[in-house]
């Protein structure tokens, strides 16, 4: 299963084999959830939006045309749901650090946990200075691992526009984090 592409796995699912979907879910549960969590800054809301994203993947599986890339389509769905959540006023403007706790990638003692928490706090605060478009591109590239081409497809923007937003985001973050003690 590890050698199958996303599109092949999804085709398996469309042909009635659930393991294709399960493998995709396993591949994307971390990066997609990270993107959503960074966007909405609320864990419970991120859980709901993550679930809704894959529910729509299931519902609209028949509409997914052959030849399309799965990853941009998946993130497009997730981003649209995040935008809807913003419009409905479900997304808080302030970051609640106590709700942002996630399973640590590396867990090696209380000290490390505290250090990681501090780093995250700084990063979250720095991300607040970005525009929505910049934050979106940055999160998908840096935390979700999408390529710039895939981000362009997911955000329905030209590649150069995406690269420009990433440049701007990196400059702002460098200014915020580089100057911080």
């Amino acid at each position: 299963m590890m050698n199958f592409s996303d599109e092949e796995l999804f085709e398996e699912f469309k042909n009635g084999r659930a393991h294709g979907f399960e493998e995709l879910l396993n591949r994307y549960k971390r990066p997609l959830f990270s993107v959503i969590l960074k966007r909405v800054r609320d864990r419970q809301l991120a859980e709901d939006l993550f679930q809704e994203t894959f529910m729509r993947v299931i519902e609209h599986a028949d509409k997914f045309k052959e030849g399309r890339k799965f990853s941009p389509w998946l993130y497009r769905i997730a981003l649209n749901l995040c935008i809807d959540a913003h419009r409905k006023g479900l997304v808080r403007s302030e970051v609640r650090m106590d709700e942002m706790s996630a399973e640590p990638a590396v867990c090696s003692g209380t000290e490390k946990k505290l250090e990681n928490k501090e780093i995250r706090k700084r990063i979250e605060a720095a991300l607040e200075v970005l525009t929505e478009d910049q934050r979106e591109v940055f999160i998908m590239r840096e935390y979700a691992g999408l390529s710039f081409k895939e981000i362009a497809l997911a955000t329905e923007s030209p590649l150069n526009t995406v690269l420009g937003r990433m440049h701007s985001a990196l400059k702002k973050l460098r200014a915020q984090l580089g100057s911080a003690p």
Partner: protein
Amino acid sequence: MSCRKYDENQILLFAYGELEPDEAERLKAHLDECADCRSVFDEIKSTRLLVNDPDMPASPSSVTVARLTSEARKRVRRPGLLERLVVPRFYPVPRLARATAAALLLAVGISIFMVWHESDEQSLVYDMETFTELIAKLSEDESLILAETDEYESGAQDALASLTSIEKEFEQLAFNGEADGEKESWEEDWDELVNEFHQLDEYFQTL
């Protein structure tokens, strides 16, 4: 940025490993010669280190993952006839298929109703026809009975007329004094007629 050979976008793609291999090799070699491009590349690299979140990427809860897995398995399970007609939320049954199935069911239901209704009407017609036939038969029988009755009434009236005539002749003969000699003959004829009349009357009463 003053370099004329490469722009920031190309350096960004290179920093994230998204340039074509041969192009990446050329840019890598260029970085050794161009301070401007090298500066841009180093800033990107250092910023990526600053934003490296040790707790990223986060993961959804196992409950959410299990729920999604369950829904996916339901999706690939072959739905039954009822599920195809009453569409659950996560079954992507085309609307056209649902409409067609509902129309077919309605057509079958209407057909069953019409056959049942027709069969009911047929049995009612059958009863009416049979009843009509029965009445007609009874009418024919009655006509036959009445006809036989008429025939025997006519016969009885004829016999009665004959008896009346014979009685008058007997009375005349008695008046004329000529009845004594021939009384036994007339009495025998009279008795015979009376017997025949009685037989006719008895037969009439059996009808």
